[in-house]
C-alpha cells in the first residue's frame, strides 16, 4: 500500500513516517499538493500554522477535496485535521471543507493545550480504542455536524472534538505518532481498515 505524507512545511514528520511504515506499506513524502494525491492513503501531518499550511495547500485544494469526496482515504493529524475544516481564526486561507465548521482558539486559561489527555466516547477506529493520548495545540475544530464527531476531549471548560470521521476521511486533534504504543496501533488499524 502506498501512503503519502503531504509535507507543508517545518516540523517533525520522522516519527509519523515510521508509525505509518508497516510491512507492506510504502511511505512517501510529497511537497506538491496535487502530486500528493497519486497515492492510496493521504496523510496530512500535524505541525505548523494554519495560514502557512493553507497557502501551501491552495494550488491543490480543489483537487484534493475532489479526491477525498471520491473516496481517497485520508488521515489528518492536529493541524492536518484542522485543514479538513472550512477555515481557521489562526490564519488566512481556506481549508478543504470536508467537515463543516471553523477552527477557533481554545477557550481555556492554559493555552497551548500540551500533554496527555483522554479521548471520550472514542469510536474513530473500531478495534483500536484509545484512552490517553498526546495533544499539543492552541486551536480546536468546532464541528457543525455532530454526527461527524467520533471522539471528544475536554481541556478546562472547553469540550471539543478529539476526532472526526466521514467514510475514509479521519481527522484527529491529538498526535497518535506521539501517543506511544496505543497511538501507533491506532494508525496501523486505520490503514488496515481503509485498505480493505
Amino acid at each position: 500500500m502506498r501512503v503519502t505524507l503531504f509535507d507543508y512545511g517545518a516540523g517533525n514528520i520522522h516519527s509519523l513516517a515510521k508509525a505509518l511504515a508497516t510491512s507492506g506499506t510504502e511511505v512517501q513524502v510529497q511537497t506538491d499538493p496535487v502530486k500528493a494525491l497519486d497515492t492510496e492513503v493521504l496523510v496530512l501531518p500535524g505541525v505548523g500554522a494554519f495560514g502557512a499550511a493553507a497557502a501551501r495547500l491552495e494550488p491543490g485544494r480543489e483537487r484534493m477535496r475532489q479526491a477525498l469526496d471520491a473516496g481517497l482515504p485520508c488521515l489528518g493529524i492536529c493541524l492536518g485535521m484542522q485543514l479538513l475544516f472550512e477555515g481557521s481564526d489562526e490564519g488566512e486561507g481556506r481549508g478543504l471543507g470536508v467537515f463543516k465548521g471553523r477552527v477557533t482558539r481554545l477557550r481555556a486559561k492554559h493555552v497551548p493545550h500540551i500533554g496527555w489527555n483522554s479521548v471520550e466516547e472514542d469510536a474513530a477506529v473500531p478495534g483500536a480504542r484509545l484512552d490517553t493520548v498526546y495533544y499539543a495545540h492552541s486551536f480546536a475544530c468546532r464541528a457543525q455536524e455532530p454526527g461527524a464527531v467520533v471522539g471528544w476531549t475536554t481541556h478546562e471548560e472547553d469540550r471539543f472534538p478529539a476526532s472526526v470521521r466521514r467514510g475514509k476521511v479521519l481527522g484527529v486533534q491529538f498526535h497518535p505518532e506521539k501517543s506511544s504504543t496505543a497511538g501507533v496501533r491506532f494508525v496501523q488499524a486505520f490503514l488496515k481498515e481503509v485498505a480493505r
Partner: protein
Amino acid sequence: MLTRRLIVCLDMKGGRVVKGVQFEGLRDVGDPVELARRYEAEGADEITFLDISASAEERQTLWDVVQRTAERLFIPLTVGGGVRTVDDVGRALRAGADKVSINSAAVTSPELLTACAERFGAQCVVASIDARREADGWRVYTRGGRTPTELEAVAWARECVKRGAGEILLTSIDRDGARSGYELELTRAVAEAVDVPVIASGGAGNAEHVRAALTEGRADAALVAGILHDGLTTVGAIKTLLHGSGLRIRSVA
C-alpha cells in the same frame, strides 16, 4: 483533564548519553536511542535530550542522534542545550524534535522566543530557566548556571510566556543533583504566575519528591534524570506512587 507528566532527561555529549560523576567528570552511560526507547517502554511521558557538548564537532552528532531517535520513539522528544538561533530551532525540529528548549539565548535576545513561536508555534518553544535562591527571591543564571543575570525568575518566566514560550522548564541550581527534593517554593511561585505548563527540574531524590513537585509545587510535569539512570527508582514506581496519591497520570498497559 490533562494528566501530570513524568519527563526523563538524558544528558548528551558527542552523541552519547553521559552522566556527571563526582571527582571523575563524565562517564558514558549508553546509547541515546536505546535509553530513550527503554524509558518509553517503562512509561515515561516524554524524553528530553540536554546537549552539553563543548565543541561544534561534538554537537554535530546531535542532529543525527535526534533523527535516529525520532524514527523509533513514539512519545514527545524535547531537545535543548546550545540553541542560539531560529535556524538552530528549525534544524532541531526538522531532525525530529517535537519541542526545543532555549535557555541562555533567550536571556541575551528574548525576541528569539517570539520569532520561534511565530514560525513554528508556541507549542514547540520551551523556555528553560535556571534559578538560584538569594535573600529576596530567585536569580536567573545562564551558561549552565555559571553566569548570574539581573533577572528575577518569576518575572522572567512571565516575560518568556509573554514573548511566546509554550512551556517553562524550571531548574533549581541549588537542588540540581542534590537529591533533596525539588525547590517547591520556586516551582509554585512560577506555576502560579504563568498560564503555560511548568516543568519542575532539579532535586529529585525519590518518588515522593516528584509527588511534592506536582502537588505542593503545582507543577504540570516533573523532570527526572539521575535517580532513574542510577536505578534508585523506576518510572513505574514513581507513577504508582503518583497514582496512589490521587493524581491523574497516564498508566501504561
